[in-house]
C-alpha cells in the first residue's frame, strides 16, 4: 500500500457556508438529492457557548473501507493513493454499501437506480489539482492531506463529538477542533 490521501477539516475556520457542498455539485453537475459532500451543523450543546459550528464531510476514503468489503459485485476499489473508487458501471444498486458505511458516504440515487459517492476528484488529483471542494473553500477550512501517514497535524484530532466510531473503517480525515471565543451574553445571569 502506498500513501493515503485524506481531508483536513478545520472546524475552527469553517463558517458552514455550504460552498464546498455546492462546488462539488457544480463540478459534476450531480443529481439533486445525493450529497457527496455534506455540511453538518454541530449540536449547540457540544460547545462551551451557543454557536454555529459545522463539520464538512464527504467520503472519508477509509483505510479499511466497509463499502469495498460488502460490495457483492466488486464495484469498489482502492487506488494506490488511497482513494476509494466506486465504479458506476458495475454498481447494481443493491445498497449494501449504504448500510455498511458509518458515514453515509455512498448514497442511493433513485433516479439512476445506483449508488454514487465522492471519488475525491481523482481526475483532478491525477492532474495535480485540488479537489473541487477544497478549491472552493473561501476560508481554507478544507485541505487535502497528501499523505496521512506522515501528516504531522499538530493541533488536529481524529474525531469530534458526533463523528461515528473511527475504529470500524479507519477514516482518512483529520479535524482541527473548534475554538471558542468569549461571549458577553445578555441571558448569562
Amino acid at each position, binding site marked *: 500500500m502506498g500513501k493515503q490521501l485524506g481531508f483536513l477539516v478545520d472546524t*475552527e*475556520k469553517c*463558517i*458552514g*457556508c*455550504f*460552498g464546498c*457542498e*455546492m*462546488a462539488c*455539485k*457544480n*463540478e*459534476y*453537475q*450531480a*443529481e*439533486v*438529492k445525493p*450529497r457527496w459532500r455534506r*455540511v453538518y451543523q454541530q449540536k*449547540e450543546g457540544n460547545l462551551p*457557548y*451557543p*454557536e*454555529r*459550528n459545522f463539520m464538512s464531510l464527504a467520503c472519508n476514503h477509509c483505510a479499511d473501507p466497509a463499502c469495498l468489503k460488502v460490495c457483492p459485485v466488486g464495484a469498489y476499489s482502492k487506488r494506490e493513493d488511497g482513494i476509494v*473508487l*466506486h*465504479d*458506476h*458501471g458495475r454498481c447494481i444498486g443493491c445498497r449494501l454499501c449504504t448500510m455498511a458505511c458509518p458515514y453515509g458516504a455512498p448514497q442511493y440515487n433513485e*433516479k*439512476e437506480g445506483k449508488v*454514487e459517492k465522492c*471519488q475525491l476528484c481523482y*481526475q*483532478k488529483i491525477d492532474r495535480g489539482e485540488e479537489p473541487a471542494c477544497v*478549491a*472552493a*473553500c*473561501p*476560508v*481554507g477550512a478544507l485541505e487535502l492531506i497528501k499523505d496521512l501517514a506522515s501528516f504531522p497535524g499538530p493541533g488536529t484530532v481524529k474525531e469530534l463529538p458526533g463523528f461515528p466510531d473511527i475504529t470500524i473503517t479507519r477514516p482518512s480525515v483529520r479535524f482541527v477542533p473548534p475554538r471558542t*471565543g*468569549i*461571549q*458577553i*451574553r*445578555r*441571558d448569562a445571569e
Partner: protein
Amino acid sequence: MAYQLSRRSFLKGLAAGGALTALTAYGGLKMAPTAAGVADGYPEAAAGARVFRNVCPRNCYDTCSMLSYVKDGILRKVSGDPANTFTNGRLCVKGYTYTRRVYSPDRLKYPMKQDKRGSGRWQRISWDEALDIIARKILDIKKQYGSTLPVCLNKYSGNFDILHYGIEGMMSSIGYTTRALGTPCWPAGIDAQTYDFGTLWNNDPEDLVNSRYIILWGVNPAWTSVHSMRFLYAAREKGAKLVVIDPVVTQTASKADLYLQIKPATDGALALGMARHILDNGWVDQEYLKANAVGWEEFFAYLRREVTLDWASKVTGIPAGVIADLAREYATTKPAAIWIGYGLQRHTNGGQNVRAIDALAAITGNVGKSGGGALYGHLETWGFNYAAMTMPKPAGALGVKKPDGTMSDRFININNFGAELLNVKDPPVKMLWIACRNPLSQDPEPQVVQKAFENMDLVVTVDHFLTRTAAWSDIVLPATTQFEEYGVNASYWHYWVGINEQAIEPYFEAKNDVQIAMLLSAKLNALEPGSCTYPTGGSLEELVGKEFNQKMLDLLGIADYRELKQGPRKAKLLTAAWSDGKFRTPSGKIEIKSSEAPKYGLPALPVYVPEKQAPPEYPYRFITPHWRHGLHSQFQNIDWMMNVSPEPFVEIHPATAAAKGIRDGDWVKIYNEIGYLTLKARITATTAPEILVAYEAWYKDLDYNLNYTVKAVPSDMGKKATGNRGLAFHDNFVNIEKVR
C-alpha cells in the same frame, strides 16, 4: 452498458439541437461519459469546455469575478476567476448553483399574459403581441392623461450590471414617468457617512489584513461576504483580535474572539460610551483631529455632559467593564478597523448610530489609515457614463413642473411603495413596469403593494422566474441571466471592476432589459412615430463600451474597455480611504458636527437618539436578516438549494420557548397588527430572549413571506444621498404562539 450507450446518444442529440433541446434533461448529464477511458461513470462536467468571463451581478458585497464553462452551447459549470485577488477564484454557495438557475425548469421561457391577475391562468404570447399590448397602453395613457406620468417604474438591485440601468433609460425615452426612488438597503448609513466624511468610501477590504484590531459591527460576512472572511482570518493569524457586536450570535460571531450581545439598535450608545472612556483616559488622537476634523470640541462637551459608561451599559445591556475594556483595546491597538454592517442602520435611529461609530473611528485617528477605517461601502468604482440610462425625452413630453419652470419625472418612495402608489394622484399611476425587483416579496407591507396593484390597468414584470410579483402581473417577460448577455459590473465593497461576456445564447425567448427597451421603442414608433427616443439597434457589447469614460479607464489602468476581456481590473484608488485627507464635506474635514444634517431635520452632533421600543402587545423584536442560501428572493428556490435547505424556520431563545410552551420543530405563528407567518420553531440560544429571528427568502412552492409582518417604517436617514429615507426593517415587533 446499454444504459450508457443510450446516454451517449442522448448527448449527441443535445449537441446538435443546441441549447434549447438540452434543458429539460440537463440534470441527467452526469452519468454520460464524456471521454473514452472514464470507466467509472463520474465524468467532469466541464471537460473540453470553452471558458468565458462573467461577473455575478447580484446585490452583494463580493460581486464575484466568475468563469463560465461552455460546451456545445451549454453552460457546463461555473467557477471563480482567480484573476480577482479579492474573490480569489472562489464563489459562494449561491454562485455554485448557477447552472441550475440558468436551466431551472421553473425559468420563464416566453412572454406570457395572465387572464386575471393572480389567477394563474397564463397564456404564452409572442414578443410582438406583448410589446403591442404594452405600447398601446402607454399611448392610451398619454392620450387620456396628457402625459406618461401614470406609467411607473420600480427597478432596483436584482441585477446590478450597469447596462441594466437601460430600463430607466427606456422610461425616460417615452416621456416623464413616475419612478420608485431610493434604496431599501443601506441609505441611512450612506447619509451618515455623507454627513461625516462627504460620502461613503471604505478602505480596500483586502487591506483588512493590516488591521491589528477589528470590530465587525452588525455585519455577518460569514454569510453575506464570504470572501472577506479570508482577510479577517489572515489578520487574526498576524495577531489581530476579531470582535463581533450583534444582537444575535451570527455565523461571524461564532468565529470571533469576543462577541458582545448588544440590545438591538443601541449601537450608538455603545460607541458613545466607548468614546467617553477614550476621552477620559487621554487616548484621543488630538493631532489627527486638529488636522482633519471639525466639531470635536462640541462632541467632547456632549460626551462629558450626557454620556457615562454606566449609562451606555444600561442602554446596550453590555457591562460597563466590558465597554471600558473594548474602548481601551480599540483605542490603543492600532491600526483598528470597524466594519459597519447594513443591519445596524435598519432602525429608526440607524443613521445616527452609524454617525456615532464614525466619530469613534475619527477621534482615535483610525480614519484614513491602512488597517483602520470605518468601513461601510463605497461607490468610487461606479463612475460609469450611465449612457444606457440617459435618454432624451420625446418632443412635447410633459412632466411635473418645477418652480424654475423646467419639468421632471415624478418620484415616489421605493421604501413605502404600496402606500405611496395608492396615494398618488393627478394623475394616478395606471401602469407598472417592474424590473430587477420583486416588491410583492421583498417590500415591507406586500399586502399594501398588492392592493395598489388593483388600481393598475397593466402590470409588466421582467424576471427569470414566476416570482410573487410576476404571479400578480398581467404580462411577464423572460429576462436573460448574466451568461446570456454582455455587461460590466463594479462592487460596492471591493475595488475590482469586471466585464461580463455573453457565454451562451439566451434561454428560449429571454431578453436583456436593454434589448426589451429597443423592441418597445420600435413598437412605439411604429404605432406613433416620435413617441420614443430609445435606440432600436446596437449590440450590448457596444453599449458596454459607451459606459466607459477616461476617468474610469484611468482608474482601471486600461486604454480600452476591451482589455477587461483579459481579466477584471482593480481600481487604482487609495488603499486606505481618506488617507489623502480630502474629505468631501462642505468644510473639507470630517464633520463630527455636521453642517448638512440639520438641513434634514437631524442633530448636528452624533448624539444618541433612543431606540424604538416594543409595544406591550407585541413584545418580541422580529429580526429578519439575509439568509445563507439566498440573496433576497434569489437562489433559495433553486433545486440544489432546496435540497440542502428545504424549509424556513424561526429562531427562538430557549427561555422564550419554555415560557410559550414551544419545543424545537413545533409549528408557531408569528403575528402583529398587519400580518402573520406560520413556520417551524428552532430553539437556539444564538438569539436573545426578546428577539425572534427568521431569514428572508423565497422558497419554491412555500407560501413564505415574512414581510407581511414588516411595516414600512422609515429609518432616520437616506434622503440626502439616495432620495428617500431607508427602512427600519429591524424595528419590527410581533407576538408568537404555538400552533395547536
